[in-house]
Every structure is written in structure tokens, then in C-alpha cells.
């Protein structure tokens, strides 16, 4: 068991591009679920819309990268409007089912053979990140020698990604301390009370859905850029569930909750993966009990268990305030 290696690689993942993606997605969910009480189970759909818009604008239509980013953000707004109109008047569980269905519609549509020439089917798209990578100031390997290191491309994605995270957190912080944010929080606590004060609850919910969806699209950009490729499997239903776990670990309705959650989640996830893989490989756990394939599943088994236990025993997460999530802590 090479503990130093395990910690180094877990740290690499905990701060790496994947953590950035989940952090951005969870910031979006924080606006939806943490502050407004909207149960959006289709965050993967917003990510897919963003990522695919950027990738196809560049790869399929040969237009500039920045235009792709703008189109991605606009389409996320459009998706939020499309989803919001039928669902925001419905009860929370209906919203959950519709958003999860919408995300799956998007994923299966972009992966279909019928649209192969635009979105590349199951193989997806590549070759859209050249102009982004050409701006990369790094070269070689970046990090603290002997402790942790990243490849130059990852470091560049991380730099941009964490800057985005800081900006998003700042936006959320400013929004939520404004009167507008207080209305959102009161919608979460008691929708009818807000309505009786003359506020247009529907309109506030829609604005919240749009803002969180745009953060989701940012997560989609980083998903595509970190591997310089995009395909439908990046946006499976489970991605949304993992993002919820990230949010709940850190603490919903806390500006920095998603940031802490993403780092902890990815550190633990890769720690468990490395631990069990090494334990299976070195014979610490006999082959008859756990093969290397099975070892890679242990982290998800623990994750599912953690999500259950967290929601049951500590719904406010590590940094949350139990009173803030009164809707569930009854």
C-alpha cells in the first residue's frame, strides 16, 4: 500500500478539473435547491446543453470558440424557460420528474444516429478546444514537487475553472444578501406567505432556474474542455445525483458549501478508488472477495450510502445551518 501515492493522487483529483465541474454544477443546484427549494434533477441537461452548444458551434459549424460559449449560455437560458413554463407551478416531486426526463431527452437526442452529423452520436465531438488550449500559459508539469502535480492542460482548465468558481460564488453571495435573494429564501420557506405579500413567486422561481441553469452550462463547458472531447455519457442521470451529493456534503444554502463539498467529495471518491484498487491488487483483499473491477465499484457503493446517511442524519451537510433547510429537517 503506497499511502503517499494515494494521498497525492486523491489531492490531485480533489482540486482537479472534475472537482471544478461538480463545484459549478452544485453552485447552480445551490441556487435552485438550497436557496429557492426547487428540486431540479436535470442539472446534467443544463451541462449537456452548454457543453454541446460550445462543442458543435466550433466543431460542426466551424465558428469561433467565444461564440460557442455565448450560444451555450443563451441556450441554457432557453432551456430554463422551456422547463420552467410547464413545471414551476407544479409540486416539487413533479418538477423533479420533469427535469430528470428533460435531461434524458437532451442526452439521448444529442447521442442519436439521426443527428450524427451535428453531434457525433455516441462518439461525440472533439477538436473544439484548440483555441482555448492555445491560450494556455503553462507548460510541463505544474504543482508542488513531491506532493501533487497536474499536466499543463489540466492546470490551465483548473485555473480558468476555479476563477469561474470564485466569480460564481461572488455572484451568489451578492444576490443572496440582496432583497431579491431574501425573496428566494422566503419562497423556500413558505411560498404562500410570499404570494400573499404580492410577490410574483412564479417569476422569482423562473429567474432562479435561469441563473442556476447558466452555472450548469459553465460546468458543461469545463466538462468538455477538461477532456477536449464531449459525448453523451458525460451527462448521465447520475451526474446530477453526484452534484446533489456534492452540495449536501458541503451544505446547501451556503455560498461556499459547493466549493468545500466538491473538494471533499472528489478527494474521498478518488481516495476510496485508489485504496480499494491497491488493496485488491496487492492481495490485501483476496481476489475471491474482490476483483479489480469490483474494487472500482466500492467508491460508488460508499457514495450511495453516504448520500443516504447524510440526508438522514445531517441534511445541512458540514457547513450548513439546520434551520436554513427547514423544508427537510422537520
Amino acid at each position, binding site marked *: 500500500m503506497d499511502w503517499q501515492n494515494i494521498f497525492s493522487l486523491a489531492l490531485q483529483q480533489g482540486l482537479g478539473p472534475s472537482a471544478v465541474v461538480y463545484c459549478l454544477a452544485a453552485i447552480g443546484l445551490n441556487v435552485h435547491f438550497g436557496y429557492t427549494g426547487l*428540486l431540479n434533477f436535470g442539472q446534467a441537461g443544463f451541462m449537456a446543453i452548454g457543453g454541446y452548444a460550445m462543442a458543435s458551434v466550433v466543431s460542426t459549424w466551424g465558428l469561433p470558440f467565444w461564440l460557442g460559449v455565448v450560444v451555450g449560455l443563451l441556450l441554457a437560458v432557453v432551456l430554463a424557460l422551456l422547463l420552467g*413554463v*410547464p*413545471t*414551476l*407551478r*407544479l*409540486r*416539487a*416531486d*413533479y418538477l*423533479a*420528474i*420533469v427535469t*430528470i*426526463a*428533460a435531461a*434524458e*431527452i437532451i442526452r*439521448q*437526442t444529442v447521442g*442519436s*444516429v*439521426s443527428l450524427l452529423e451535428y453531434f457525433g452520436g455516441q462518439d461525440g465531438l472533439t477538436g473544439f478546444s484548440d483555441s482555448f488550449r492555445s491560450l494556455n500559459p503553462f507548460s510541463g508539469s505544474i504543482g508542488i514537487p513531491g506532493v501533487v502535480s497536474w499536466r499543463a492542460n489540466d492546470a490551465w482548465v483548473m485555473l480558468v475553472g476555479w476563477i469561474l468558481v470564485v466569480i460564481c460564488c461572488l455572484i451568489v453571495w451578492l444576490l443572496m444578501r440582496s432583497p431579491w435573494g431574501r425573496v428566494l429564501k422566503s419562497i423556500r420557506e413558505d411560498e404562500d406567505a410570499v404570494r400573499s405579500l404580492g410577490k410574483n413567486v412564479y417569476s422569482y422561481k423562473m429567474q432562479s432556474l435561469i441563473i442556476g441553469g447558466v452555472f450548469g452550462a459553465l460546468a458543461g463547458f469545463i466538462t468538455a474542455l477538461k477532456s477536449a472531447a464531449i459525448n453523451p455519457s458525460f451527462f448521465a442521470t*447520475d451526474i446530477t*445525483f453526484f452534484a*446533489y*451529493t456534492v452540495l*449536501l456534503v458541503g451544505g446547501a444554502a451556503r455560498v461556499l458549501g459547493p466549493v468545500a463539498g466538491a473538494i471533499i467529495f472528489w478527494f474521498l471518491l478518488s481516495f476510496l478508488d485508489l485504496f480499494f484498487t491497491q488493496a485488491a491488487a496487492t492481495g490485501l483483499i483476496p481476489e475471491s472477495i474482490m476483483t479489480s*473491477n*469490483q474494487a472500482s*465499484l*466500492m467508491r*460508488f*457503493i460508499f*457514495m*450511495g*450510502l*453516504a*448520500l*443516504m*446517511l*447524510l*440526508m*438522514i442524519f445531517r*441534511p445541512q451537510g458540514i457547513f450548513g445551518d439546520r434551520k436554513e433547510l427547514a*423544508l*427537510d*429537517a*422537520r
Partner: protein
Amino acid sequence: MQTGIRRIAGLLLAVVVAVLALSGTAQAAAAAAPTAADAPACVLPEITDDDTISILGRICDTRETPQTPVEGVDITVEDESGNVVGEATTTAEGTFEIPLPGTTVDNLGKTFTVKVDEKSMPEGAALRNPDDVTRDVQINLDNDVSVSFPVGEAAGGEGIATQGLQLLVGGIVFSTLLAMAALGLSMIFGTTGLTNFAHGELITFGALVAYAVDQLPGAIRIGGTDVTVVVAVIVSFILSGVFGYLNDKALWKPLRMRGTGVIAMMIVSIGLSIFLRNIFQYVAGGQNHNYSQYAAVQPWEIGPILLTPKDTAVALLGVAVLIAVSLLLQYTRIGKATRAVADNPALASSSGINVERVIAVVWTGGAALAGLSGVLLGLTQGFDYQLGFKILLLVFAAVVLGGLGTIWGAMLGAFIIGIFIEVSTLFIPSELKFVGALVVLIVVLLIRPQGLLGKAQRVG
């Protein structure tokens, strides 16, 4: 109420046994059918159960009725690396038989490509499906493999109508299975308010338990007939019920007692779904599984429609179970109590109904139904650890379409979604059929948020 529970269990079991027995006779009838057909009809060669695997096949001209065999077409079989391992020419009966080199064990899991030489076809004849010139055949079972290459337009020439009818039949078979799963989900929602995202795992659980029983060494025989899979279905039905009961007892009941909110429970169910799904993959691996029996059966040709005895049995069993459950809910004490709790738990409780007991029954019954639908899905199409997760959204669509928490709505919704999925492939690519169903779900919510049979109450 105790008797009510026992009666439900007894009736369901009786239905399962009866329909599976029926499927046994159907199997026998199917085997007898080809010999009854007129000679030079186009029939597949007999499947032999020896130590080698052969690829058997036929080429029939479906432009005429009865179908006529096509003679003298050259067929080659290639292995994965493109080497020709066997050749044949169709006989006067339109059939060919190509034994694969090596014994059964050598060939298991390999893929072979069967190629039809189009140049050797008679003038004016072409395969009905032009892409069919080569076909990949995977050897999964220790039986011979049969392939058939229909020539010409579909019989009767009413292309789209025939196709539509065939899809409709397929849709009905799938619907009955979807309805069983949807019924459980809807009843659990109705009585406890839980939107159970782990319901898909109850479906997979059924398929897995049956597979485990099926894989036990030795075959279970009654009077010389191999009934291993039948026993597996019954065992998994019962164990699924037990699993559902334990689910409620160990997790959901304590949560209800603590007063956990419905949204929190929903997220807990997502955690449970991820947890169970990965355990299933841990145990069963990532590959696709098939049961040892009924994997390759010859279809009946009823008019222009092809229908396998297996699908018929599955659909009949499904319908019988659904009718049995409906009757139980409609007429027995526990059934009435269930509907009362689904309607208004507080009122039901105050009129002396033991709500917790009803919920325990619903969990047991709902999970047993879900498990049964899982086994039957596995029987019709094979299964992997994601079986239930893949159709979970369709189950949700069915339930929401019919009206969340309503019992008849769940069945109605399942039939609409199931049939829509299959028949819609006439007009949209089949890879997008799930998308079509999900779009229907969203459109219905726009127009009628409470679902088709839901009460017009505020849902938001």
C-alpha cells in the same frame, strides 16, 4: 386483515403458477406447429441438442402466401477475424445448416458473421431488409443458432399496417410489464408520499434473484419437464416481496416515524438507488445476462405477425397478475383499506385502519410486482445490473401520465406509454423512442398536471 394478506399472496401465487403452466403448453404447441404446416413450406431445420453448435437458417420468399423457399443461395460464415469457417448453399426447402468447428465450449461467447451472397439470389429477389446481407450472430447458449432471411416485401404488402400491428403487439407485451412496475411505484407513492427513485432497483432485484436460482447447479424437473426458470420466477417473486418488506421495515418506516420530509426521503431514495445498483454490478458484473431457458424460441406466425410463445406467456401472465391485483384492490378488505389510505391517510387512520400495516402490505406487494416485472423483462430481452434504472423514467412517465398515486391511472398510463414507445418507431427512429415517451410526459403535465385519472386538485 391478516386473512386479506394471505389471500392476496395465495391468489398471486396461483396466478403465477397457472400462467407459467400455460406457457409450458404453449411451448409444446409451438414445437408441434411446424410439422403441421404444408410441405414445401418454409420452415427452420430442427434444433439439435448435441455437442457442436450449428448455425441453422432459412431464406423464404415472403412475397407469396404460403411462403416459398429460395433455393441455391450461397451462405458463408466468418469468425471474428474474418476467416471463413463454413459455407453452404440453401436446399430445396430454403434451409441451410453450417456446423461451427470445435465443440460447444470453444464457441461460447464468440461472434460469427453470416453472409448472404446476393449474386446467387434468383432474378428479382432481394432481401426484405437490404442491410441484412451480413448478420452478426453471438453464441451465448449451448444450442444451435437459427437465423432467417426474409426475401421481398412483407406478406400482404400492407407494409405500414402490418408493421404497426406487429409493433402494437410488442407494445402490449412491454406495457403489461411496465404496468406491474408502475403499480408498485404508484401505490407506494399513494400511501406514503415517497417518490421512490430506488424503484428501478426493485425491478433489477427480481431479475437478479431469478438469475441466481437459475444458475444453481442442476435443473429442477417436474415429471421430466425442466421447470428451473419457472421455479426461479416464483422464488424471485416471493423474495422481491420480502425485500420490499425489509426496505420499508429497515429504512422507510423509521424515517416516517422521525417525520422526515418527502423531499429528504426522495434524496435518500436516490442514495439507495446508487448504493444498490453498484452492489448489483459488484455481484453480477457489467455484462448482459440471459436465463438458461426460453432464450431462443421459434415465433408463431399468426397472419402477418410474428409472436413468440414466450412473449405470449409473459403478456398473459402480466395481464392475469394485473387483473388479480385489481380485483384484490377492488374487493378485499385490505384492498379497500389500501385505497382508503392512498386517498387520505389521516382519515383512513381515524376510521380504524391500521395505516402502517397497509403500508407494509403495499411495500411487500409493490416490490413483488416490480420484481416479477424485472424477471419477465429479463426473460424477454435479457438483463444487466441497470435493467430497472434504464426503465425507471418510463415507469415514472406511466405513473405521472395516469395520475401520481392513483391505481388505475398507473395501469392506464403504462399501457399508453408502452404502446406509444413501440408504435412511435413507425415514425421516429427507434433509438429515440424513449425520448418520444418522455416528451409525451412533459406535454401531458402541461395540459393536465394531475394526470389522466388524477383528481383535479392543486398540485403546485
